[in-house]
Each structure stands twice: as C-alpha cells, then as structure tokens.
C-alpha cells in the first residue's frame, strides 16, 4: 500500500484511499446492521426459551395443583363432618395446603357476599334472592379453587353457589 511507496505516490493515491475507506465504512455499517438483527434474534429467542420454560413448568405443575387441591378440599370437608376426628383431618388438610404453597399455589376461597368473579369462580348452583344488592354475589362456597402463582392465573376455579335476583314475575 501507500506506506511502502514514496511520498509522491501517496498523494496520487489519496482519492483511491478515500473511496476504499468509504467502501469499508459501508461494509462495516452493513455488518453492524446484521449484528443488530442477530442481537435482536438472540434476545427474541432467549425470551422465547424463558417463556417456554415457565410455560412448561406451569403445564407440569397444573395437574399436581389440581389433584392436591382436590385432596385438600376433600380433607377439609371430612374435617367439618368427622366430629372428634375432624381435628386430624383438618391437620392433614393444612399439610396439603402447605405442599401447595411450596409449588407456588394458593387457595381461592371466596367469601359469601363477594361478587362472582369470572375466570376464578365456577357457578355450580344458584340461590334466588329478592335483594337486588345480592344479585351476582357468592351465596356459599362448595369447594376452594387454586391460584398458580407461577402462571399468574387461577388454574382451578372455586365452586360457588351464586345469588340471582328473582325476576318480578317470579316473585
């Protein structure tokens, strides 16, 4: 290149060098753009892996939460009916509750009078009421539901009986 030539030659080559630099700059810019695109792809793929990982864990845990939840509900029901042995059943129910907590799940236990929440409650029966204020609220709870903290959603809805306003012609 020009460094090994004499000084006169360097001056004569100047426009050629400028063009070469320009070409290099353009090529670098293209490389830069491609690298940015790759970067973007890597970030997107990483996000996707994370999403899949969480999704997969949530999918694996979902039946466990549902089954443990069912067991906890059954034990709690026995506890309420079993007289003296009820304390034992309640203890077992608490233990299952703790297991659920360890996998990031918590019970959904609506209180009577709370509004029925779509997606979190399953209405298994209706109780007619004359009180318009009670319409669409929980009358009683048949079984707790469960919220999966990892997935951020209710995976088992609570089974509730809901108040429904009696229509005038029915009253």
């Amino acid at each position, binding site marked *: 290149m020009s460094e090994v030539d004499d000084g006169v030659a360097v001056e004569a080559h100047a426009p050629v060098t400028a063009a070469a630099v320009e070409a290099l700059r353009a090529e670098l810019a293209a490389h830069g753009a491609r690298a940015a695109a790759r970067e973007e792809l890597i970030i*997107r793929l990483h996000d996707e892996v994370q999403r899949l990982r969480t*999704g997969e864990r949530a*999918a694996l845990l*979902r*039946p466990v939460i*549902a089954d443990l939840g069912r067991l906890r509900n*059954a034990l709690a029901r*026995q506890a309420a*009916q*079993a007289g003296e042995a009820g304390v034992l059943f309640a203890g077992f129910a608490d233990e299952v509750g703790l297991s659920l907590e360890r996998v990031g799940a918590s019970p959904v236990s609506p209180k009577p009078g709370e509004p*029925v929440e*779509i*997606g979190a*409650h*399953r*209405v*298994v*029966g*209706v109780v007619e009421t004359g009180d318009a204020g009670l319409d*669409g609220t929980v009358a009683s709870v*048949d079984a707790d539901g469960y919220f999966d903290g990892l997935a951020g*959603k209710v*995976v088992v*809805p609570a089974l509730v009986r*809901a108040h*429904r306003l009696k229509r005038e012609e029915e009253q």
Partner: protein
Amino acid sequence: MSDEIFFGVDLGTTNSVIAYIDQVGEPTVVPNQDSDGDITASVVYIDDDGSPVVGQAAKDVAPLYPDRVVALVKREMGRDREWAIGGQSFTPESLSALILRRLADNAFAHTGKPVGKAVITVPAYFGMLERGATRNAGRIAGLDVIGIVPEPVAAALHYDVVADAEGKTILVYDLGGGTFDTTVIAIEKGSIEVLCTDGDSQLGGVDWDRRLADVILREFKERVDLGDEDPEDNEHFMREVLAMAEDVKKGLSRAQSRPVAPRLGQTGARFDVTREQFEAATADLLDATIDYTRRTLATLAERHPGRKVDEVLLVGGSTRMPAVAARLEAELELTPRLHDPDLAVAKGAARYALGQAVWAWDGDEDTPGEDRVAARAEAIAASTGIAAATIRKIAEKRVVTVLPKAFGVRLVDTSKPGWMDDVEGSSYIEHLVHANDPLPSGPHHRELGTVVDDQGEIEIQLYEQSGAVEKPELAFNTAIDHDSGLVSGIPKGKAGMPVHIDMTIDEEGLLSLTATEPSSKKELTIRVRINVLDDDQVEAARRRITALTVKG
C-alpha cells in the same frame, strides 16, 4: 423476515382448536392460555357493558347468567338468528367471530405474529348458507379466510393418507364430546370428494361418561348403607362422581381396571371399575355409532356401487376407547388408524391452508403448471421461513373439495294445465349443479323466458338440495336466497322473451349469479344474496367485533 403464518381452525360445536404450520413445516397446536390443554370451549359470555369472555370461564358462569351465555352457536350457523345481550345484538356469525378472535389472540400470544391467513373447517353436511356464514364469521373476526374445508377432509390430510392415494376410499369415524359423524371420502386424481356423510348431533363422549357415572353410583350404593339418604339428591356428590367417571374413562383406555373411592359425608367405599363393566354399560351407544356407520356404507354402496373402504381414520378424543377400534375392526375387517384424534382436524386444516396458498391460481387453465407451483413454493418459503422442499411435500397434491349439495333454480311448468292458478304446485327445481361436482364449478348457463306479455321482471328463487338425494320437488329443497331474487330491466315484449342466467360456484362452494338479456347482451340487475348477512353487515360487524377485547 419470515412473517407469514398459515393457520387452521377447527371451529367446533363444543370446543375449538387453532393450529399453524411452524418453521420446520410441522403442524403445531396453539395452547390455550386460559386453561388446561389445547382446546377452547366454544362458549361466549357477554358482560353487562358488552365485553365478551370466551372459553371455560364463560361456561363456568352459565348457571348464573343463562341469558348472557351462548353455547352451541355452530348449530345456528346459516340461520337468521339474533341474540340481544348487554345492550347489543349478536348473530351466529358475530358470536363465532368472538370465538375465532379469542383463538387468534391466543395464537398471537404464542407465535408473536398476528393471525392473517386461515382455513376454517366445517362439518361435511354443511351446505352453502352454513359455509358462507362460517366464512363471514372469519371475516368479522378480521381473518383472511383462504379456505373452508370439510372436517373429515382436514383429518385425512393430517393422517397423510392423501399423498399417493389415488382411487382410495376412506371412512372417517368422528366421535367428539357431543356429536358423532361418519363420512366416506374418496381421493381422486386432483381432488378429495365427500361421498356421503351421516351422524347424530346428540351423541358423544359425554354419554359414555354418564353411563360410567351410573356404574360407579350403582356399585357405591351396593357397598354402603345409606339408610334413607339418596345420594342422587346430593348435587355435590353427583358432580364428583361424574368428574370421577371422566377420569376413570380415560384410565380404562390404558388399563383393564381402575380404582375409585366415592365418598358421601361420613360414608365411603373403595372398589375397582373394569373395562368390561364399562363396555357392557355402553354397548348400546357403540352399537348406535356402528348403525350409523353401516347406514353410511349402505348409502355408499347404493350411490357408488363397487366402492370399498380402504382405510378407517378415527377422529375425536372419544375414539381413544379401545372398544371403538376393536368393534370397527371386527365390522369392517380393517385396522382403524388412531393418531392425535383431538387435534387432527385443526392440524389438517393448517396443512390445507399452506397447500391452498401454493396452489392458489386464477389463470385460465384448470391447474397451475409445475413452474408456477415451484415459484409459489419458493415465494412462500421466503415469507414463512419454511424450507421450499417441505412446503412442496405438504402441498404435494392439490386438494379440491366438491360441492356438498345440488343447487338449482325454481321453475314453473307452463305446460301443466291451470299452472297460473297454482304456481306453487306447478313449480319444480331444476338443478344446475350437482352434489360432488368438483369446485370451482361453472359458469353454468341456463336460458329462461318470460311467461306473460310485457313481463319486465323475473323472480329467481335459488334452492339447495335438502335431503340426501337430489329431487326436483320443492319439498326436497331449501330456499337459500336472502334477497328478492328479482331480475329487472327486461325489455317489454311478448311472452317468451329470453333471459340468460349464469351460475358460478367458487372453490369454497359459494355461489354467484349473473343475468343477461341476450339481444343487447345487457347485464340485468339481479338481487340475489346467498348469505344471511350482506357485505355491509359483515363490515359493520367486523368493525364492532375487532374493536372489542375478548377475554378468556
């Protein structure tokens, strides 16, 4: 950048599924973000303020808000029905569009790309109005519906029985959650035809669950002493037994017996339910499906003498019960194929969508040439990121569906004495196109004439065959035009002035009609609409529905 994705939607009566062809070229089902698994309940709830919820959450509040929850919308497709909920009015098309929107939103969350091109499946028995309504539901949901395909055809595509299967006859046995269909399809050079179909819209897997629940209940009652208490009065117990039955049914597909432990208050029992018990309790249900299958085969023998079934495909989750395959094998002496029965239709529809795009053709010849197909495959490879070779393999064979039912116009037999006093009784249907005509079809030409002097208008009434067999009598046909059907502007003259009618049916079985006056070649105004909703109504509904956020 690969941005284009081809989707297939199984828009079902009770559940719906959406699938797409991924970058490896495999059909992939979009998981439902809101609940367990791949399916979305086809149930819509409309809130007080008009905002919609689709899926299991909607189903869960149905007992509380029976007036605001709509299920089984598919049964109303093609009918002029309206629901007024939350201060708004909904048609079967717009409610189906809400389900499609929810599926599309889930797909967007899963793939990161909006749903554009999609194929929607319909039952083989759906006629033109129902297909048109399904297509409009897609349009209202903001989708680019590139095809409507019969469910058994989509299933056959998934089972990959289409390639190199010329001349093959396939029986598709589809036992879903609430419906049963059996369909015979024929794979011919360049097309897949639905030869005949039969079924029961009230028979499905849920009936098997109820029978198994009865078995569990009977065994429980025999084992425990309940005194005067009738367990059937206890709603909670009965619900648990039914849920138990659903689980046990699935278990009995893999094992010979399953333990169950029903509990009622302080009383509990533990016993095994065997596959033998289950099959004995449900034998008549299976028999019913076999009767339908036999009837379908009898229709096949009658209409296509000499045709024998070469393959049996099982579709629908309930076909996992071993008794189904065993019974069909004994009946037909063929080993039924069972693969992905819940998702086969959606996956096949996604394959069909990609194939449609490769074969899309508006040239003069019947089919595009080799070069054109190769070029399309390359173009789609560039836009989807799927290898061109994979695309060509999926689209190896062009799938052309056929017209499900015959179509025609109502004519008056003026040779019949006294026809003027009894126009109705002197009318008959002349079918211009027939069931199983490959699509697209036409133009079919017909020359009509005026029947009285100076008749300036002709009323055209379009009819679709309503029974299994094409017959000219009015009673065996259904009127399908939702407009006046009036051809106007006919020059005055003696009776017998000619009017030419041309009928064309596109690839999805949708019909268009033109009328011309032959001497002037002038196109006459014709008011015909083979859709419950007209284009303006669809557009208005699209604007309304796509502006809503559909929750799950």
